[in-house]
């Protein structure tokens, strides 16, 4: 998939566990795992907004395009 989700990097920078992030964002750990592993087909804006709010970052910090 050309779009990569750099959640691991942001989680490490914010010193947050994935379980904690999932609880704050309001998604299951399984769904967060799908997101981190790159298996997700799409991300809702509401979810992206919640992640950016929780990690205090921009969407560009999490999403990366590779050709």
């Amino acid at each position, binding site marked *: 998939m050309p779009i990569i989700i750099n959640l691991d990097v942001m989680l490490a920078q914010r010193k947050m566990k994935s379980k904690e992030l999932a609880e704050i964002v309001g998604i299951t750990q399984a769904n967060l795992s799908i*997101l981190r592993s790159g*298996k997700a087909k799409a991300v809702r804006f509401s979810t992206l907004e919640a992640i950016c709010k929780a990690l205090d970052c921009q969407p560009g910090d999490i999403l990366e395009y590779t050709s």
Partner: protein
Amino acid sequence: MKSNTSTIYTVLKIVFWIILIGHLIQTGSIIINYFISVFNPNVPNNTFLGDSSSNLNELGLRHYTSYLSFQTAILLSKAYMAYLAIKIFDKINLANPFSETVANLIVNISHTALGAGVIAIIAQGHTQWLAKQGFDVMKEWNGGQFLFLAGIIFIIAQIFKRGIELQQENELTI
């Protein structure tokens, strides 16, 4: 609304069970009657289906056997379709209805209906010839209706498969 759907499901499941058992009983009676009439020609004239197919014995065992084979094949096809419908009711999960298992069952129903339609058309040709010989046999086998059913169910199966793709995409949308 939920209990209404659930009630309809239960009723439909019972109806399909009745259809399945009914067709199996009919098939069994035809087979038993056939073997009895082959080994004992002094059986009553009317079969379970009400036609005088035992008169076909006069025409020869081959035509008698093929006529009853066609009837048996159609009845077994209908019973199998009822069985597949019951399996759909068992396998389907209304929370996530679009699954490969259910899609395959629907495709199987379509293929069975197609097969039944082809058999019915062949049987119709055979019985039309028998009718011309003066035998009182079932002339209308509804082959066209089976083919129509097969076509409609096939279209539904394709739409269902697209539904599976959309559901999977939805499940992978976070």
